[in-house]
């Protein structure tokens, strides 16, 4: 899989940018590159997050993965993740869950990686 590390770093950056956009200045990350998949968990301390913001985050991260266009979108999106939009991360991950307990926003995404046989 070409550029595996770089792409996962971009997903992490996009999620962190989004959390910051929502008001989270303290974030904890768990970043795992495993043989078959990558697993990223971000927990951000955000007080008073609206249910609409949570729903929007969930919907964007659960866009169907676009394997064919992933490379292209990754190329054209530039190098900054400053706008807080999660579109690129959404098309690059297979599953995503978003939860909020009134104080901590938890975003958990999994990206299946192509193995050499594929």
């Amino acid at each position, binding site marked *: 899989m070409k550029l595996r590390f770089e792409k996962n770093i971009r997903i992490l950056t996009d999620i962190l940018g989004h959390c910051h956009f929502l008001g989270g200045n303290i974030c904890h990350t768990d970043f795992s590159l495993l043989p078959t998949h990558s697993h990223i968990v971000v927990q951000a301390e955000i007080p008073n997050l609206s249910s609409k913001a949570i729903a929007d985050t969930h919907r964007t991260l659960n866009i169907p993965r676009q394997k064919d266009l992933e490379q292209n979108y990754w190329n054209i999106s*530039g190098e900054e993740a400053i706008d807080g939009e999660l579109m690129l991360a959404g098309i690059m991950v297979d599953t995503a869950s978003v939860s909020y307990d009134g104080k901590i926003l938890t975003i958990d995404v999994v990206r299946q990686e192509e193995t050499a046989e594929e």
Partner: protein
Amino acid sequence: MTFSKPKFYKPYTHALLTFAGFAIFAFVANSPAQIWDGLGKIITSRSLLITDYIALGGLGASLLNAAITGTASVLLMAFVRVEPNGSIIAAIWLTTGFSFFGKNIFNCVPIILGVWLYAKFQQENFSSFALTALLAPTLSPVVSEFAFLGRFNPWAELCIGCAVGIAVGFLVPIVAGVTTRVHGGYNLYNVGFAGGVISIFVAAFTTSAGIEIERPLLWSDDNNLFLCIFLCLLMGSLLIVGLLPSRRAANLRGYKKILRHSGRLVSDYYLLYGNAIYLNMGLLGLLATALTLTLGAPLNGVTLAGIFTITGFGAFGKHPANCWPVVLGAIGMALFNTQPLASPSNICAILFCTGLAPIAGQYGWVWGCIAGALHTLIVGHVGTVTSGFNLYSNGFAAGFVALVLVPIILSFKRGKSIRETEI
């Protein structure tokens, strides 16, 4: 290119029906003999900027050319089984629009073959380069120019044209992959910027080889009524799809959300909001048509390309709220230059400056106006260095505007965090 059983997703079926409508309009406009004759002129033209195919081959032939090229684009996507998304829909509309103004089935194919060769070279599926393949024919005048040079044996020229087309097609994915670093995703016409860079080298080669490039200016202005009816029906059909009773409420909700996006790459409205894009596309198309006519410009091949491009990018980055500031800035600058407001260069700049809409979406309407004004200022100068080989010359100019303007904007915002500036 791996062809399997084609998969016709709904947006592809909708596009094919639309292009069937184009063909019907073609035969309403002209007789089959006129269309055949016009199509021959279009395919054998050198197609450099500005070649309005309506002026060259007539209304019917241009409409049929657009129908053929658009249908071929959709079939290519269906056969390589690319799932539809905003960028593919935008690229199909852009290709169709530029089929009134520089693209035809002959000069597109070698370039797409070049992209396919690059995919093979990279040992990747062609479907991963489908978007680039649709957009790469920004350099299609290169194929026509070399193929119909009129200096050597016609068959040899034809072969040279195809070979050069394949070569530049091979280069487009490489260059387009890095040009985004220049504009940071704020230029929606990224391949136009890449095409501009490549065409500088092509233009330099032709100059050094002693080949004189004669820039044409074919510009028709006598089909306003017919094309206005055509565009109103076309945009109306998009609005109808967006307002179908079964999805009306969801689409209207989705459309409200589209209007909140900055539009910066990647803003794929189709993946996020589905058929709500048709509302956006139809509305943008009608607004662009009204703007063109209000400014006193004719509806012709060139303005149709602009209107179709705006419409297509309604699925991928543009909406009225991020387009109006750049258009306003472009009109403001056009009022101050020596050309009439409705001159070809000004009207092209006004329609195509919307490639910079993400600047307005991200940084506000004032910076959007400045972006539009700067675009109008430089587009003519930037176009000359490419000798008319790059059809998306406005994308080339927009790249330079973003390159200069975005760092300036950021320097004004220095010291503030993202949240402070964006919320």
